[in-house]
């Protein structure tokens, strides 16, 4: 399982981040491969796992989105895309896409939303998520820092973090910097996408290359 992806939903923004290293076994194949794709106006997907399956999945979703646009004359909303992704994954229940996805974006009210998936399409809307090899290192840290949207809390609370956009971005950078230290598959460069009402913004941060 390679690479790490993280997403955090805010009140009016969403941050999705993934490292850009592609590796196999103990070798690095490339240090600069983007795993994040913008599927629609307000939906961005980051996936870890087997990259050929990830790429195929991205293409299928992009084609389905085009068809949707032709039929409905508008872009797919993030929750609609979330359902489509789930259905697409389950369609191959008996020969799955080896892809561990995180879908982030803005819902129809403009609030940030993050959906997290397993390989066969089981999904849930959450306030934050991490997938990939570094997820085991990052998730406990996010549980601690982002208390309120944690799915572990009962009763279930609002699924977005009260943090501001810049605080969330800093948090993501901290997560990756730490994960890079211990996880061999995570590193090289961090790609961060921020979605908010004014559009999409990309940021990069260097990570350790070893």
């Amino acid at each position, binding site marked *: 399982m390679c690479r790490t992806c993280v997403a955090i939903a805010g009140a009016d923004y969403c941050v999705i981040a993934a490292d850009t290293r592609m590796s196999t076994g103990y070798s690095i194949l490339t240090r600069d491969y983007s795993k994040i794709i913008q599927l629609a106006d307000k939906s961005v997907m980051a996936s870890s796992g087997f990259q050929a399956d990830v790429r195929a999945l991205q*293409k*299928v979703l992009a*084609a389905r989105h*085009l*068809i949707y646009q*032709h039929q409905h004359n508008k872009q797919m909303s993030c929750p609609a895309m979330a359902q489509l992704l789930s259905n697409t994954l389950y369609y191959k229940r008996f020969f799955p896409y080896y892809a561990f996805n995180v879908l982030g974006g803005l819902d129809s009210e403009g609030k940030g939303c993050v959906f997290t998936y397993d390989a066969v399409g089981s999904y849930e809307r959450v306030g934050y998520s991490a997938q990939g090899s570094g997820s085991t290192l990052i998730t406990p840290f996010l549980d601690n820092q982002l208390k309120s949207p944690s799915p572990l809390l009962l009763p279930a609370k609002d699924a977005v973090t009260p943090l501001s956009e810049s605080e969330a971005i800093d948090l993501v950078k901290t997560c990756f910097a730490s994960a890079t230290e211990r996880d061999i598959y995570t590193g090289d460069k961090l790609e961060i996408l921020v979605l908010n009402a004014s559009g999409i913004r990309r940021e990069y941060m260097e990570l350790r290359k070893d």
Partner: protein
Amino acid sequence: MFRNQYDTDVTTWSPAGRLFQVEYAMEAVKQGSAAIGLRSKTHVVLACVNKASSELSSHQKKIFKVDDHIGVSIAGLTADGRVLSRYMRNECINYSYTYESPLPVGRLVVQLADKAQVCTQRSWKRPYGVGLLVGGLDESGAHLYYNCPSGNYFEYQAFAIGSRSQAAKTYLERKFEGFTESSRENLIKDALFALRETLQGEKLTSSTCTIAVVGVGEAFHILDQETVQSLINEFEIVGEEPPADEATVPDQGGVAEPGPADQGTPTDQGVTPMDV
């Protein structure tokens, strides 16, 4: 020509070597409201007349986006046109899924023509009753094709189909030599004038016509009503008589320059909810 014993079946030849059902299908195209296409070296403009069956109803959609680089306008049985547009969209999506590049217009047109031909050689099918003006851009430049119900297709510099299209064709025949080097604005203007010819006296307003453009650096899109109305106003000021007198020297080079009125700010998308 009509009502003879060889026209019941599309699979029956007449002694003169004609398939009457196919020819009747082409008649259906002539009955539809007009659609016009023109192309320059870098742009293709499609225009059509909006015919609503009554004051209470909306007009039918006659221009369809097939892909970012291809659009189609139809005349005839609009239902057939809708179905064929869906086919074309699927073909484009599948091609770019497999080859990661846009489907060349010429290929799409051949596939469409083959599909139409099938219906001329099956006893349980009927020919599509729609003519399609396919306009698009690919590596080899801008193209305009006309697809017939017969399964034939032709490439054109400019063409008009549908009712009263002869008037538009006459106008286009006069002007077509200048189209290759024409600018985007002049091309649209010529489309509007040609369209006006088919209206034969009826007023040309943005509610009676639809214009779509595709060009270098410009994805296929239908111009919104306000833009079209402002273009009509701009051009009609020049004069009512057919512009034989105009010194419309086409601008230098066919390089795409986005007209300031068109780009961005289509303020209210849902102004007339029944419009496309």
